[in-house]
């Protein structure tokens, strides 16, 4: 009689075991989704291999052509203008340029994903060669592509999902096996809400996210592997290294300070902001043609390409001649000097410098402590950037890596590490411990943001903080969870909220509401709350624990609605820090 019972249970067990064992033997790919270009790489057992698309390009332009056949369209691997000239395939370029810039293609999705229409970055995206409309009310912006002369609405997540599905198919055909698990790198400044959107896009594309890794962390991991490899060849003794990684791509700028010792890469601090090549481009467009906002989509696209090329050339020469026919009889013909470019974008250089200084400060590291300084990303060839990093860190930039593929190499390594690869040679005897990129806390003391897990805390982490009631006999308390920094209340992101009910009647300040926050090594967050009346050891109400974020799109809108609905009474429902005097 007992036999069948065992069998039933063992079946469950088998599936469980199979899951975990098959997960470990599966190939994990690393993807770097850039604002303008993407790449895919994989650890092949002895080294990282970059996967190339059908045109044999390792860097794949991130444009999605929306058309009528399939629900949303198909992904096209376009050449970037730079590649075109270096490869001499001008014809190919011209034939697709029209498509790219006619409004039918969606590009720069990484800048728009998970943002609401009050966001500065969304507003700055209105001159993209497709439709971006905002109503400034804290909801998802209206994004559409032109299909047969009709605007077809889409969302950044859908576009990203399509693109990722395409990358997966490409990787599967190259590796000749199904691909499921993936490590992606993301900008430091991404909110948890944006990370959820990326995860969703992956799910739609049939991919399972093992880890979302901040870009400079991926670069630091590659550096650690290089150092380990190099030193093993020489003496075998790996000495402690501290590296500063500066990464600036088309959409985001990130900085990390990493401490590498004995195969453990410990991220000391991270900082990041949404500034990048796209800002250089827009500032130059505005500088050269102040009325560029009024251009139609096609002319805007032509202008965009011409100026992008000019900026690129300015990295290698002092001045460049721009001569572009914008259609409708208008023409832009101007000479641009490098100093002009630097002057127009002064504040961006300044801001990236601040990020670097801040990161070193947060890491408690001085210039003398640094072993190497690494500059990567699409903007890493801009002389002004190289100069300021070299001056600030008082040393030459590390030469050992390709600035465009460093991040994707790092993700492939992390993919191998987290899936427990077979590594007989000990080539990847590495471990990375990551830190939280933003503080996480709750609203307390009326409208203050009280961080429970501060920024730059090593994960995994579990922290608790005790709060209490603000009114006598308060039976309900609202726990409103935010992500961000205490100083910038307006920019903090609402992650979710939940109510604790049934608090036993007591004088204000007596019940202890213990809010716990927990992020695991994969940066998944859960928040819990339990209530204890001093003197009793048992929780007074059942413990609430939930995964965050819980709120969906339009989160800033959601925060407003919350305040509007509960505004007058929220004060009496909110908690305050125990022993905080108000």
């Amino acid at each position, binding site marked *: 009689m007992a036999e069948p019972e065992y069998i039933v249970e063992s079946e469950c*067990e088998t599936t469980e075991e199979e899951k*975990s*064992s098959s997960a470990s033997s599966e190939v994990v790919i690393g993807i770097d989704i850039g604002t303008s270009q993407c790449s895919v790489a994989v650890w092949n057992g002895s080294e990282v291999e970059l996967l190339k698309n059908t045109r044999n390009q390792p860097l794949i332009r991130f444009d999605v052509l929306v058309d009528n056949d399939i629900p949303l369209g198909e992904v096209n691997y376009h050449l970037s203008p730079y590649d075109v000239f270096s490869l001499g395939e001008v014809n190919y370029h011209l034939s697709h340029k029209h498509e790219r810039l006619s409004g039918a293609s969606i590009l720069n999705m990484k800048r728009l994903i998970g943002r609401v229409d009050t966001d500065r970055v969304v507003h700055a995206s209105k001159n993209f060669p497709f439709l971006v409309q905002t109503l400034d009310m804290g909801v998802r912006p209206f994004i559409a592509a032109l299909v047969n002369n009709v605007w077809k609405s889409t969302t950044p997540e859908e576009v990203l999902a399509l693109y990722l599905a395409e990358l997966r198919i490409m990787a599967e055909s190259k590796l000749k096996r199904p691909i499921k698990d993936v490590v992606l790198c993301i900008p430091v400044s991404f909110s948890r809400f944006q990370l959820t959107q990326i995860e969703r896009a992956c799910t739609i594309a049939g991919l399972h996210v093992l880890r979302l890794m901040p870009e400079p962390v991926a670069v630091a991991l590659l550096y650690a592997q290089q150092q380990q490899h190099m030193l093993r060849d020489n003496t075998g003794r790996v000495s402690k290294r501290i590296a500063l990684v500066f990464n600036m791509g088309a959409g985001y700028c990130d900085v990390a300070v990493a401490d590498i010792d004995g195969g453990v890469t410990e991220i000391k601090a991270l900082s990041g902001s949404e500034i990048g090549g796209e800002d250089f481009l827009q500032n130059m467009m505005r500088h050269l043609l102040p009325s560029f906002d009024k251009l139609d989509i096609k002319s805007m696209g032509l202008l965009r390409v011409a100026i992008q090329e000019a900026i690129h050339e300015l990295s290698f020469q002092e001045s460049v001649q721009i001569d572009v026919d914008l259609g409708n009889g208008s023409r832009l013909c101007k000479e641009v000097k490098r100093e002009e470019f630097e002057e127009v974008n002064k504040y961006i250089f300044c801001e990236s410098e601040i990020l670097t200084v801040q990161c070193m400060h947060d890491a408690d590291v001085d210039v003398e402590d640094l072993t190497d300084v690494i500059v990567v990303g699409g903007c890493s060839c801009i002389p002004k950037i190289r100069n300021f990093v070299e001056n600030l860190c008082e040393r030459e930039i590390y030469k050992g890596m390709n600035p465009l593929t460093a991040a994707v190499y790092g993700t492939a390594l992390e993919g191998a590490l987290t899936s*427990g690869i077979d590594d007989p040679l000990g080539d990847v005897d590495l471990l990375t411990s990551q830190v939280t990129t933003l503080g996480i806390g709750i609203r307390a003391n009326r409208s203050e943001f009280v961080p429970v897990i501060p920024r730059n805390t090593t994960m995994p982490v579990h922290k608790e903080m*005790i709060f209490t009631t603000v009114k006598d006999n308060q039976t309900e308390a609202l726990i409103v969870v935010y992500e961000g920094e205490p100083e910038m209340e307006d920019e903090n992101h609402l992650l979710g909220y939940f109510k604790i009910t049934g608090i036993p009647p007591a004088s204000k300040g007596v019940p202890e509401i213990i809010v716990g926050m927990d992020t695991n090594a994969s940066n998944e967050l859960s928040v819990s709350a339990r209530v204890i009346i001093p003197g009793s050891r048992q929780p007074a109400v059942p413990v609430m624990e939930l995964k965050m974020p819980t709120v969906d799109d339009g989160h800033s809108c959601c925060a407003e609605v919350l305040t509007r609905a509960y505004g007058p009474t929220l004060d009496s429902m909110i908690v305050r820090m125990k022993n905080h005097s108000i």
Partner: protein
Amino acid sequence: MYKTKKLCAPLSTIFRGVLPTRRRLSPYFSNSQIPSLSSHLQSSSRVPPRYALHFLPNSNFSFQNLCSQSAAKLDSSTKRCWNCVADKTGTTPFLYCDSCRSIQPVDLSIDYFQIFGLEKKYEIEVDSLEGKYKDWQKKLHPDLVHSKSEKERGYAAEQSARVIDAYRTLSKPLSRAIYILRLEGVDVDEEQTVSDPELLTEIMEIREAVEEAPDSQALNQIQSKMEEKLEESSNSFVNAYQSRNFDEAVACIQRMTYYQRASEEILKKL
């Protein structure tokens, strides 16, 4: 082969029911928020051993850490690996089994000093912590047990988070001082209102000096003075702690808290 599976299955199924897979730690791991723990105890710095209780290995304080604790309880008497049943060997704290390389459940009787193989003393070589910390991470980090059982992954998360907290707590003088007192059953409230008139006057003076500082050089001077003061109170803490004068030790911590904050404030201004 199938048979072994059959036999093992029910046991681990039961385990899964008993051991929640949530990666939870007991409350006092969350070290950075110590101040809030003792809010209701403003009159005296000596605390009835309510929180101190948690340090005893077998106290069933909250049902949340029960899982880890009950598992620890099984092991703490014998110090036996849950996986290969090998007895613990050597003097290293038993966070990890050297014979089968499996991570052990959190044992709350092992304090932060023991984790780093240190004597329970305020004065420690901070530089020696980092190497040991990294050695632990290379054994305990959740990334390393990706393919292992859910149970062990849970242990990895708990142990790793605890070692991180231990490292952070011990590397800073102030948090180390607070922690060592807590091991003695004394809970310190950093936020407690300053009542010492001497310190109050000093605070006022420093605040004025910072506000009126004409340039960064002047600020730098105040800053290095704060560092000096911090060092001084840290030394008096050592004496107070050694002579087990805990009220004095708490007063030292209060001064250290203040000087450190002042120093941080100035750094922000610079």
